[in-house]
Structures are given as structure tokens and as C-alpha cells.
């Protein structure tokens, strides 16, 4: 157990220390290799930790600096945390591998190293959000993640990307302000910041029937702050521009991973601080459910109207995040398992769609649907990634998106009044997804001009980028076909969370 015991701490330490080493490497290519090497090592460590924790069916806490809580800080690792760390590191690695060519071509050589530093800091922040056992540490890393994500948007240095970054920063700051206010109120009620101690104190207060109103206000502020940060409808105004105006690798990471980091904190708050019983009693679960239900419909309708491929995918992200809120709002343990399934599936699928779209944009030279006609014939693997990802989100069986929807529907059947609205929302949203993904898929595989025969062109020389897309495709099919084992793993993870 001694090696696996140190893996959470070592993962965060490796990510942060390697980020600090990046500026010492003058060559941007070397910096990229260093950050990807660290991500690979963290992925391997997380896979080992996951295997150990699943075998022993337990979780553990790691005392930072060997000071016991509440003086020292703590990390906590169970199967769900290890799985999330594994998925986050794999998606980060694959996104930086598949998007590397665009980064090398678009960024000035001296800037590539700085970009790698940003990505590695973001990676460290995401790992810390997954493993931390302390609410204030979570806040600090939420902020580190938000600042690095904003700079990643602005890194393209176009007018549009800087405007998007500033809007992103404004919403992000509002989200952090509300979150900090929520933490302050919670601390003033309980005097605790560690999740375990918070849970004990909240249970005592609830049993005594004291401070119910401020506790609800604190839960609402935290939920609202994190919803703004994770672009849940109707707080998603910043998302489409921010995700559409930056590099493909950044879009994939921002959409696939960064939004999930905040959701992990919501997960921790629901399961380990407020408890589902309290949230159900004060109807916060209904609020989450309604946010999710409206978001999955409205964001999908907005996606229908988009002329630009990346904006359409970004709106689709907002819709998919709403599925997670819907599942969290079911107020049951199965709902939490379904939300975790959707987190994993969306991290893998959305990054794959963005990377596929990036390949097609590069091949065709345009961002708009008119310019992307026939683009999949010029970049077949990118087209395949976009197609499989799109069909997965539409709910085609044997693909990851179907399994996630099936899991949410299964959880909704056991809910109270939410069953019918949830099933209607899932069905309507799937139809809406199909309404924008299927015409897009038909367009990209169509001929550029009716008279012109267009053969498929397989590009040589980008083996690593293409390999990354193949791994993402395989991961998507695996998550779709291995539904039973993945759900059991997530059930174990949620039980030990």
C-alpha cells in the first residue's frame, strides 16, 4: 500500500514541479514532451492506484506533511478519485498529442513552452480538485484552474480570443466570489473546512434544527458559483466564444476537463458535506434538476442555430453538462452514479469531437459549415472522430453516450416526480442532438462540389496525433460496450467517495 498511498500527492507534486521546470527548457518541443511524459506517468500511477483500491475496496486519506487534520492538509483517494485522475490525465495527454501540430504551427516557438506551463498548471489544479479533502484548498485550485484556463483562451492572441478570455474571466470571478461567500458562511456555521469535519458539523446542526436558513443560503451560493464556472444554462454566455476562439487542444481540454473539475467539487459537496437528505429536504436537488432539464433543451436549440463548427460543439457541451446536473438533481445514489458516468463519457467524447473538428478545420481551412463540406474526406480520421463522437452524443447504442443516457434513464425510473420530465428531457435532447449532429456529419462526408470526385486522403507524418484520435475512438467504444463493469466500478466509487 505504501507506493499507492503516495500516488495522489506525487501526481499533484509532479504536475506542479514539472510546470515550474518548463521555463528552464528553451525548446518548446522538449517542454511539450516533458508535460506529456508527466501526464503519462500520472496516468500509469492512477491506473495502478485504481486497481489497488478496487481490489481492496477501500479509500484512504493522505496527511500532507504528516500533520493530522485540522492543522495539516489532507488528500483523499478512493476508486472514483483514481478513475477521474486516470481519465483526466489520459484526455489531457491525448488532447496535447492530437493538437500538437496546430500548436507548433500557430504559436511562436518561445510561446510554446509557456503554453505547456499553463497546461501543466491546469493539470495540477484539476488533480488537486479531484483529490483534495479540504474546501478551501479546493477553492484555491479552482482559481488556479480558472486563471490558467483564461490565459489558455487568450494564448491564441487574436482579438476575438482576448475578448472571449475577458468575458470568461468576468463570469469566472463572479463564480469564485459566490463560492467564497458560500464557503465563508459555511465556515462561520461550522468552524470547519475539511470535508469530513464539515459533514459531522452539518449533521449536528441539522439534528439540532439550528441555522437551517444560512446553511441553505451557503449551499445555494456554492451551487450557483460552481454552476457559473461549469457553464450550466443559463450561466453559459461565456462558454461558446471561449471554447470556439482558442486552439483545438485548449478547446478539447477546456470543454472535456475543466468544466468537470468544478462538477467534482459539487459532487463532493453533495455527497460529503450537505448530504443528499438535507438537499432533498430543502429542494436544492429540484433546483439542480430544473437547471439540468432546461439547459439540455435550450443549449441544444442554441446549438442548432450555429454556423460555426466549434461554437456548435461548445453549445453541445453546455447541453451535455446539463445531463450531469439533471442526474445530480434526481436526489438518489443511482443518480450520482449516472452523473459520474456522464462526467467520464463527456470528458472522453467531447475532447474527441473537438480534436476531430480541429483536424477537419486544418484540412479545409474554414470554420463554417459551408467551408467544411467534404472536410472529412481530406482528414478521414478527424472526420471519423467527429462522426463517432456526434453519434455517441445522439445516443447510438454501443457508443459511450448511449450508455450514459441509459444510466441516467435507469436512475430516473426510481425517482419521484422527476421520472417523466427526465425521460422526456432525455428523449427530446437526443432528438435535438441528432438534428444538429447528423446534418453536420452528412455535410463533412459529402462532396465539396457535385461535379468533383473527391478521394479520401490519408495524411502521413502525423502518427502521434492520429494515434491519439484512435485511442479516443477505442475509449469511446469501450465505455459504450463495457457498460456493466464501468457502472459497477462507478457504484463502488460513489459508495467510497
Amino acid at each position, binding site marked *: 500500500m505504501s507506493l499507492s498511498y503516495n500516488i495522489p500527492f506525487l501526481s499533484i507534486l509532479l504536475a506542479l514541479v514539472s510546470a515550474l521546470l518548463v521555463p528552464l527548457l528553451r525548446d518548446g518541443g522538449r517542454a511539450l514532451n516533458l508535460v506529456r511524459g508527466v501526464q503519462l506517468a500520472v496516468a500509469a500511477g492512477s491506473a495502478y492506484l485504481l486497481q489497488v483500491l478496487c481490489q481492496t475496496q477501500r479509500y484512504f486519506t493522505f496527511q500532507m506533511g504528516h500533520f493530522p487534520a485540522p492543522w495539516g492538509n489532507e488528500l483523499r483517494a478512493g476508486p472514483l478519485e483514481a478513475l477521474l485522475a486516470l481519465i483526466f490525465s489520459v484526455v489531457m495527454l491525448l488532447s496535447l498529442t492530437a493538437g500538437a501540430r496546430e500548436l507548433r504551427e500557430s504559436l511562436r516557438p518561445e510561446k510554446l513552452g509557456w503554453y505547456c506551463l499553463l497546461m501543466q498548471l491546469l493539470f495540477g489544479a484539476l488533480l488537486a480538485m479531484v483529490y483534495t479533502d479540504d474546501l*478551501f484548498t479546493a477553492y*484555491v485550485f479552482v*482559481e488556479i484552474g*480558472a*486563471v490558467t484556463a*483564461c*490565459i489558455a483562451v*487568450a494564448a491564441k*492572441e487574436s*482579438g*476575438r480570443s*482576448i*475578448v472571449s*478570455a*475577458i468575458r470568461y*474571466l*468576468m463570469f*469566472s*470571478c*463572479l463564480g*469564485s*466570489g459566490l463560492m*467564497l*461567500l458560500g464557503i*465563508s458562511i459555511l*465556515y*462561520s456555521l461550522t468552524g470547519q*473546512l475539511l470535508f469530513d469535519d464539515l459533514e459531522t458539523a452539518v449533521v449536528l446542526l441539522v439534528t439540532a434544527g439550528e441555522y437551517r436558513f444560512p446553511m441553505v443560503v451557503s449551499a445555494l451560493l456554492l451551487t450557483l458559483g460552481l454552476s457559473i464556472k461549469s457553464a450550466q444554462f443559463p450561466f453559459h454566455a461565456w462558454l461558446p466564444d471561449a471554447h470556439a476562439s482558442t486552439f483545438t487542444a485548449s478547446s478539447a481540454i477546456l470543454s472535456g476537463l475543466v468544466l468537470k473539475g468544478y462538477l467534482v467539487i459539487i459532487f463532493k459537496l453533495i455527497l460529503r458535506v450537505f448530504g443528499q437528505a438535507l438537499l432533498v429536504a430543502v429542494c436544492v436537488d429540484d433546483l439542480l434538476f430544473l437547471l439540468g432539464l432546461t439547459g439540455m433543451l435550450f443549449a441544444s436549440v442554441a446549438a442548432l442555430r450555429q454556423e460555426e463548427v466549434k461554437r456548435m460543439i461548445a453549445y453541445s457541451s453546455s447541453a451535455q453538462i446539463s445531463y450531469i446536473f439533471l442526474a445530480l438533481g434526481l436526489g438518489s445514489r443511482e443518480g450520482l452514479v449516472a452523473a459520474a458516468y456522464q462526467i467520464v463519457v463527456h470528458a472522453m467524447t467531447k475532447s474527441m469531437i473537438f480534436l476531430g473538428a480541429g483536424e477537419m478545420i486544418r484540412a479545409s*481551412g*474554414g470554420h*463554417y459549415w459551408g*467551408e467544411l463540406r467534404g472536410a472529412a474526406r481530406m482528414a478521414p480520421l478527424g472526420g471519423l472522430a467527429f462522426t463517432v463522437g456526434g453519434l455517441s452524443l445522439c445516443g447510438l447504442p454501443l457508443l459511450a453516450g448511449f450508455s450514459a443516457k441509459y444510466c441516467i434513464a435507469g436512475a430516473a425510473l426510481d425517482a419521484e416526480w422527476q421520472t417523466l420530465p427526465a425521460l422526456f428531457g432525455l428523449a427530446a435532447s437526443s432528438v435535438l442532438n441528432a438534428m444538429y449532429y447528423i446534418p453536420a456529419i452528412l455535410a463533412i462526408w459529402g462532396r465539396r462540389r457535385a461535379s468533383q470526385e473527391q478521394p479520401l486522403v490519408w495524411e502521413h507524418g502525423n502518427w502521434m496525433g492520429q494515434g491519439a484520435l484512435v485511442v479516443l475512438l477505442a475509449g469511446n467504444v469501450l465505455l459504450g460496450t463495457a457498460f456493466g463493469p464501468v457502472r459497477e466500478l462507478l457504484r463502488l466509487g460513489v459508495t467510497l467517495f
Partner: protein
Amino acid sequence: MLEALLEQRYYVAAVVLFSIGFVTLFLHPNLIKKIIGLNLMDTAVFLFLAAMGYVDGGKAPIVPPGAEAETYVNPVPGGLVLTGIVVAVSTTALFLALTHRLYRRYHSLNLDVILMLSREGEEDGNHKTA
């Protein structure tokens, strides 16, 4: 009513400051004023936190060995405020840097004007590619 407000004056001030900051951040088009609004919002939360840890008549939380128990001010909110200030300084610096870039490019600090100019630039770019 007035007595209750006076008793909770720090919290009331924090709420008022937060509201002013929020309105300035989201409704004022000038980027520098938005940054001031953001800082007001952060300061309001820090005031809230600091007021929470303050104990009337409490001493600084430095306990010499062998000292008898006395009333001390809670040190944790102070630590949280310090961390919060570091975060606020970082976001302000980033906001200022982005504002500077936008000003160099569009020669304006008005976000509405900048948004209009950036959209026009984008449309021009599309016309050129078409």
C-alpha cells in the same frame, strides 16, 4: 431594526459592497471600472471573512507557552483572507493584462465597442477568405 443593523454592520457593509461590485462588474461597459467592481466584490468577501473571525476584546492569536486560556481572535479567517487576496491580485493582474492587449488592438476601453469591432474584424476576415 437599526440596532440590529448596527450590530451586524460589518456583514451589512459586506453585502452592500458586494452588490456595488457585482453591478459595476456586469453593467458598466468600461473595462477599468469592471476591474474596480471585481476588486470591490472580492474586498466585500474579505470583510465578511475577517469580521467572522473577529472576537470583541479578543487578543492576537499568539499564545506564549504556559499562558492561561484567554479570548483570542480566530486566526483561520485571517489566513483565508490572505489566500483570497493572493487570488484576487492574480485575477486583477490577468484582467489588467488582457485589458491592455485589447486597448492596444482596438484603442478603446469600452467592452461594447470592443465587441462590435471584434465582430466586424471577424466578418471582414470571413469575406476575405470567401
